[in-house]
């Protein structure tokens, strides 16, 4: 009686929304991570303060609250976002705050001697950052970035709050329409796990490619 194939179609549509959110959220998170992470090690007090405020605020308040604000409160100050935009904004800013600390940690993990070599070769601050520090720090960040991306994937499950028909939301719909709990939830668990595996596999192969001939960069 139950038209499972149709409902699986619904779940797959949800998977597309989840993937879309994860990809776009990751891009935003990456941008924020570099901006705020480098802000944290800036020479300028104002930048450091701004970056710290951003990071502590977004790590401090729950993603639920941030999502709610992005969708329901921003319109009152004249910024009306589509659900997808609001979802990407909240997820990206939230995960970006965590990833910013990764960027800062990686930059600081590059030994003082590399900074000194830059000075001794008379490279400017930005030249040294761009050519020497960041390329090495990137390799240190990558594995944790992979974990952050998986966190983001899992966090997309909360966007059902703002009527985005992601994987979890579609599973809820199917559950309400069919009265079956086990099938939709098992299905989406597997889909989430496959997506997570894809992310960690992708990050790992990226890491291998970047690390080629670079033994000794990472301790």
């Amino acid at each position: 009686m139950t038209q499972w194939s149709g409902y699986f179609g619904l779940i797959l549509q949800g998977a597309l929304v989840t993937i879309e959110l994860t990809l776009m959220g990751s891009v935003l998170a990456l941008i924020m991570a570099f901006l705020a992470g480098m802000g944290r090690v800036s020479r300028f007090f104002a930048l450091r303060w701004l970056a710290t405020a951003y990071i502590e605020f977004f790590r401090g308040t729950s993603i639920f609250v941030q999502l709610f604000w992005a969708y329901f409160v921003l319109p009152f100050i004249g910024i009306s976002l589509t659900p997808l935009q609001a979802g990407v904004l909240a997820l990206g800013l939230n995960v970006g705050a965590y990833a910013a600390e990764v960027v800062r940690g990686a930059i600081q993990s590059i030994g003082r001697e590399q900074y000194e070599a830059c000075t001794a070769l008379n490279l400017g601050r930005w030249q040294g950052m761009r050519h020497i520090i960041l390329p090495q720090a990137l390799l240190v960040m990558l594995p944790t970035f992979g974990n952050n991306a998986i966190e983001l994937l899992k966090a997309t499950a909360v966007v059902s709050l703002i009527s985005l028909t992601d994987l979890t939301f579609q599973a809820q719909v199917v559950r309400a329409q069919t009265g079956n709990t086990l099938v939709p939830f098992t299905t989406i668990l597997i889909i989430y796990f496959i997506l997570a595996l894809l992310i960690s596999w992708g990050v790992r192969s990226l890491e291998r490619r970047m690390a080629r001939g670079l033994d000794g960069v990472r301790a």
Partner: protein
Amino acid sequence: MSASAPIIKIDSISKSFGSFKVLDGLSMQVMPGEKLALIGPSGSGKTTILRILMTLERIDGGHIQIDGEQLYHMERNGQLLPADERHLTRMRQKIGMVFQLFNLFPHKCVMDNVTLAPMLTKGTPRAAAEKRAMELLEMVGMADKAKNMPAQLSGGQKQRVAIARALALSPKIMLFDEVTSALDPELVEEVMNVMRKLAAETDMTMLLVTHEMGFAHDFADRVLFFDRGRIVEEGKPDEIFRNPKQERTQGFLKKIIAAGHRV
């Protein structure tokens, strides 16, 4: 040589780390082309002097002149102001440094390590930078490893690349901080040979910190013996190593010899 002006003129500088005073009113001068060895017990401030000259540390007081210009100060309308980043950048062109642990850039091949700074800081075109790099790598005997990554080199080879890298900016003054002490004993010799050659062939001014007394003896025109941030004794290598006048110098050399080092 005595006719020309000193290329480095250090005038009663002081430097503390926290409450610990490493240098206290130190003065010294170095003539153009001089090869100077700085020796002395651990913690006496030898490294600190080199790092100050390379602007890796700031001084708390005093003045330093390089090649007739203030290092940490700028003259504006007859007044001495603290140097800004632009002034330091200009002054650093005159100085190169080689570190104890090489500090090569691990993500760049040997060639890129050597060409990076000339291309970025002087705008040297790639072709010219690579030509010059090849000459320098030739000189330190590393031309055949130009495409290797640092991780594929032995310590001695890394240090020779580091020397070539510092030379690529053609500084007037080269600073060497214990460039052989992180190497396996068998690899020490190859680096020393490169440096002896360098000392003989160029008229660059060189400051060398080392614990290898034999090497200091061969390399230097003049030896400074440091203790607790002060120059206790200075003179020609033969004088210092054969006939040290100060008790502190004698004690130090005796211990070093007892520990198995040749003078």
